[in-house]
C-alpha cells in the first residue's frame, strides 16, 4: 500500500548567552566536568533561579524574524521528572503561553518556495549529561550543560519527506546563526533535532500513530533516520500491524532506529507554573527596543542583499548564508569601500577566491584570518583604481594576513604599485626586445602564442608591477606600426 509520510520537527537550539538561563554560571563548551555549575545549577537547598534576560531577548529576536506572535504575558513552568542529570528533579520550561507562538517559516526545496507553520518556540533549561563510559562500573554526571538556555522550536506536522525536512533544517540553521542567537554547532549539541513521524493512507485526513526519533546530530543522519523509520512503519502497516507510539533512538552505526520507551512508560510531567519566578511580562517597548537594536533579518533579505549589492549569482550566495562570520566581515569591509556601487562585486569575489583560497591552502579557518576589514577593503579600492594589479593585490593580501596594516604604506614599502605608465613600460619592453630578438621576430611574423612569453618577461623586468593588459596592448601596437 502507498502511504503519505507526515513529519513534524522539534529543534532545540542552544542560545548564545554568556551565562545560563537561570544562573550566573558560564556556558562555555568543553570545560572540565562540573566546573561550570554553580550552587543554583547543582540545586543546592535554598537556591533560587534568576532569569537571564539576554536569553529572553534572543527568543524574541527569533520570534520577530519569523513574524511570529510574541506572548506578552508568558511564564515558566516546572516539568517534573527524576533523572540523575536533572539536579532539581524538574526542568524549568514553558507550557501554556510560550514566548513565541504561531509563525511561518519560509524555505526553498529544489528552488521551489515552501513554508511550514511554527506552532511555538519556548525557552527552557538544558539538563546535564550522564556519562556511562567514563568510569568503570558506575555512571558519572557532568552538570556543565545543566541550565544552559535552549529555545525549542516546534513545527506543525507539515513535512512529507526527508528532503523537505533537511531543506527546512538547513535554512533554520542558517537563520539562527545569522540572527546571532545560536552558534549552530551540531556536534556540540547546539542544534538538536527530534523528528515526529507517522504514516497515513494517501488521501486520508486521519493521522497515524507517530514515533519520535530523538537527538539526531547531522543532516545526513536525519535523512537516513527518516528513510529508515518510514520504511519500518510501512512494513508494520503492510503486514496489518499497528505502529506503537514510541520514543526511538537513531543508531549511527546501523542506520536504524531502535525503541527507547513506549508511550505507556512516558512520564506524567505534572507541569505547573514555577513559583520561584514571577510571570514574565514583555512590554511593547521592550519588543520595539529589540527590533531597533538587534539585527533581525530573514534569509530572503540577506540573499537579496548578496545578489543585489554584491552582484553574486544566486548559487554563490550560499557560502555567505552558511558562514555568518564571513557575512558580517563582508558587510564590514564593504563599509570601507570608496565606491561600493562598483567594487562590491570585486570584494565578494576576492573574499571567495583569494581569502578563502589562501586559508584553505594553509588549512586555516576564519579564526586565523587576521586581515582587518578596512585593509581588505583598501586592497579592493587600490585594485579598482588600478594602483594594484591582481598579482600585487594577492601580495598585499598575504602581507595584511600576516598582521600588517595600512595598505597604502605597504604598497610603497614593497613596490606593489602597478606600472601602467607607458614610458616606463616601453623602456622595459625595449629591454626585453633586445634580450630576446628572435622571439620578438617570431611575434612580428604572426606567431601570436609567443606574446605570453614576452609579456611575462616584461612583468619580470618590472618585478610584477607592470599592468599585463597594458603590456599586451603595447606589443600589439608594434605589430601594426
Amino acid at each position, binding site marked *: 500500500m502507498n502511504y503519505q509520510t507526515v513529519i513534524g520537527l522539534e529543534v532545540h537550539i542552544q542560545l548564545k548567552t554568556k551565562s545560563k538561563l537561570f544562573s550566573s554560571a558560564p556556558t562555555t563548551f568543553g570545560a572540565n566536568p562540573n566546573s561550570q555549575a554553580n*550552587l543554583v545549577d*547543582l*540545586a*543546592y*537547598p*535554598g*537556591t*533560587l*533561579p*534568576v*532569569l537571564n534576560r539576554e536569553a529572553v531577548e534572543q527568543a524574541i529576536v527569533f520570534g520577530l524574524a519569523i513574524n511570529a506572535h510574541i506572548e506578552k504575558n508568558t511564564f515558566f513552568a*516546572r516539568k*517534573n521528572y*527524576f533523572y*540523575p542529570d536533572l*539536579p*532539581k*528533579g*524538574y526542568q524549568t520550561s514553558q507550557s501554556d503561553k510560550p514566548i513565541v507562538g504561531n509563525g511561518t517559516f519560509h524555505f526553498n526545496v529544489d528552488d521551489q518556495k515552501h513554508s511550514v507553520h511554527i506552532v511555538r518556540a519556548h525557552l527552557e533549561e538544558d539538563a546535564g549529561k550522564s556519562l556511562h563510559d567514563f568510569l568503570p562500573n558506575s555512571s558519572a*554526571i557532568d552538570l556543565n550543560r545543566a541550565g544552559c538556555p535552549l529555545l525549542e522550536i516546534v513545527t506543525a506536522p507539515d513535512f512529507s519527506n526527508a528532503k523537505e525536512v533537511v531543506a527546512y533544517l538547513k535554512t533554520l540553521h542558517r537563520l539562527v546563526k545569522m540572527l546571532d542567537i545560536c552558534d549552530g554547532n551540531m556536534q556540540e549539541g547546539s542544534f538538536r533535532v527530534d523528528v515526529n513521524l507517522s504514516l497515513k493512507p494517501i488521501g486520508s485526513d486521519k493521522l497515524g500513530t507517530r514515533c519520535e526519533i530523538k537527538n539526531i546530530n547531522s543532516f545526513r543522519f536525519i535523512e537516513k533516520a527518516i528513510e529508515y523509520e518510514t520504511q519500518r512503519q510501512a512494513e508494520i502497516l503492510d503486514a496489518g500491524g499497528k505502529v506503537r507510539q514510541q520514543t526511538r533512538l537513531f543508531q549511527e552505526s546501523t542506520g536504524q532506529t531502535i525503541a527507547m520507551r513506549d508511550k505507556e512508560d512516558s512520564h*506524567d510531567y*505534572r*507541569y*505547573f507554573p514555577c*513559583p*520561584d*519566578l*514571577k510571570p514574565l511580562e514583555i512590554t511593547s517597548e521592550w519588543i520595539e527596543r529589540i527590533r531597533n537594536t538587534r539585527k533581525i533579518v530573514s534569509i530572503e533579505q540577506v540573499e537579496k542583499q548578496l545578489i543585489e549589492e554584491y552582484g553574486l549569482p544566486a548559487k554563490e550566495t550560499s557560502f555567505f548564508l552558511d558562514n555568518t562570520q564571513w557575512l558580517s566581515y563582508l558587510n564590514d569591509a564593504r563599509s570601507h569601500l570608496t565606491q561600493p556601487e562598483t567594487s562590491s562585486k570585486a570584494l565578494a569575489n576576492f573574499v571567495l577566491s583569494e581569502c578563502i583560497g589562501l586559508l584553505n591552502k594553509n588549512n586555516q579557518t576564519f579564526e586565523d584570518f587576521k586581515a582587518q576589514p578596512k585593509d581588505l577593503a583598501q586592497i579592493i579600492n587600490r585594485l579598482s583604481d588600478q594602483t594594484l594589479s591582481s598579482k600585487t593585490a594577492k601580495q598585499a593580501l598575504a602581507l595584511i594576513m600576516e598582521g600588517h596594516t595600512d595598505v597604502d604604506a605597504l604598497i610603497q614599502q614593497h613596490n606593489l604599485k602597478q606600472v601602467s605608465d607607458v614610458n616606463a613600460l616601453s623602456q622595459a619592453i625595449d629591454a626585453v626586445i633586445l634580450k630576446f630578438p628572435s622571439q620578438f621576430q617570431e611575434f612580428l611574423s604572426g606567431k601570436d602564442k609567443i606574446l605570453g612569453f614576452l609579456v611575462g618577461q616584461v612583468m619580470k623586468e618590472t618585478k610584477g608591477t607592470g599592468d599585463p593588459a597594458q603590456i599586451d596592448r603595447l606589443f600589439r601596437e608594434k605589430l601594426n606600426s
Partner: protein
Amino acid sequence: MSQPWHLRSAADLGRALRRREVTSVELTKYFLNRIDALDPKIHSYLVVTKDLAISQAQRADAMIQAGEGTLLTGVPFAHKDLFCTKGVRTTAGSRMLANFIPPYDATVTQKMYDAGMVLLGKTNMDEFAMGSATNHSYFGPTSNPFDLNRVPGGSSGGSAAALAAGLAPISTGSDTGGSIRQPASYCHLVGIKPTYGRISRYGMIAFASSLDQAGVFAHTTEDAALLLSILCGVDEKDSTSSYEEVPDFSKSLESNQLYRIAVPSSFFAALDSEGQAEFRRVLTTLEQMGHTVSWIDLPIQDYVIPTYYTIAPAEASSNLARYDGVRYGHRHENAHTLEELYSLSRTEGFGEEVKRRILMGTYVLSAGYYDAYYQKALLIRQHLKQVFAKTFESFDIIATPTTLSAAFLHNAHDTDPVAMYYSDLCTVSVNLADLPGISIPVMQHQGLPFGLQLIGRPFDEATLLNCSAQIERALPWHSTHSPIAMQEVV
C-alpha cells in the same frame, strides 16, 4: 534591681551594649550557659554554635567600640534550621539533610551577620517546615516552656521555645501557613510574618515557594520592628522579592493612630467560651483606646484549609524532588538500580508527614486531577485575595485569634493529621493572600498563652507594628514568663 538579661528585650540588650554595661561576649556566654543548662528540658536547639558565636561577639564588640552597627549589633539570636548557614549544619529538621553543611549563607543569615548579630545556634523545626507542633522533626520534638507536656507549635517551634525559655533574646522563623504566628501564640511571643516578597527567600530551604516567608520572633514589638527593618528588602538572588520601599519600622511605633479594625465573626464563633471572653476583653480595650471595631462576614474558613493543603503540597512535591540521594543528603548505600536508589533514599530520608504531603502534592498535579484540584485551588486563592482587598477598602486591620486555643498536648493529633491541619485555620489565609500578619501575646486560655492576630494590607507592616505597640502599652505582657525562663543559671 534590673531584670536578668534573658528577661529583657533585644533592644534593651542593645542599649546596654551601647552604654558599655555589658559586652557582646559576656551576653553571648550568658545565653550559651543558659542553653547548656536548660535546653535539654525543651530541646529547642539542634546545633549550638559556641565557637562561632564567641568570635562573632568579639567582632561585634569591636564594631560597638568603633561606634558602628545598629541597635542589634552584638545581640545574640537563634536561627531556624531552615536558613542556610555557611559551614554550620543545616538540616531543615530532616534525616535527608542530617549531614548537610551549606557552602553558603542565606540572604537572611548574611544580613544578620552584617548587622553584627551573634548566632547562638540553629533551632528545631518540623521537617521541611511541614507541621504545627515541631513533633515532625527527625531529631525529636521540642516542648513548650510554659508546659513541658505541650507542644510549642510549629513549624518554627524551636525558635519560639528558645525565646520563651530565655535561651535567646530574639529569633528567626519561617511562615508558610502560620509557622511563625501559631508558635508565637502558643509561646507568648510577638511573631510577625511580613508580606510575601518582603524578605528574600534565597538560602531558606523551600517548602512551598509561593507561600514561604521568613519572619521574626521577639519579646516586644520594638524588637520585631528592629529586626524586620534589617531583614526586609529586595534581593537580586530572589526574583520574587519585592522592590517595595522598606521603612524603618521602629520609627512608627510611638504614635497613637486610630484604626478601623474588622473582626470576622466566623473565627470568633470557632472559639470556646473562655476564648471568646478573652478575645472580647481585648476588643473592648481596643475600643476604649479609640479604635473602631466592626464585626464582618469573611466567609472563607470553609475553603482555606483545603486550598492551602492543595497548593502547598503541590509545590512541596516539586521542591523536594531534588533530595534524590544523588548529589547531597541521605543516600541508601545498597541500591542496585536507579529506581531503588531514589525510592530507598527518599523512603528513609523523609518522615511520614513529608511523605504524606509529597503524595498529596503529586496527586493534585497529576494529569486528570490538575484542573479539579490544583487549578481550582489557584482560582480560590485569587478569590481570597479579592475578598481581602475588598475588606481593606473599608478597614485598616483585620483582627482574629491567632489560634483557637492554647498549645495542645504532645501526641494530641498523632492519629489525625487533618485535625492538626485545622490548628492553622486562622493563619493560612494570610499566606494564601500574600498579606502581612502578626501575633501578639495578649490572651490566655486555661492559664496558657494564646495570641491575637492582626492582618494588614500588602506591605503595610508598619500599621500592624504600630497597632501592636499601642496594645503593648495598653495591655503590657512582659510580666508573664514561662517557668523555665524564671530559672536562673549560675
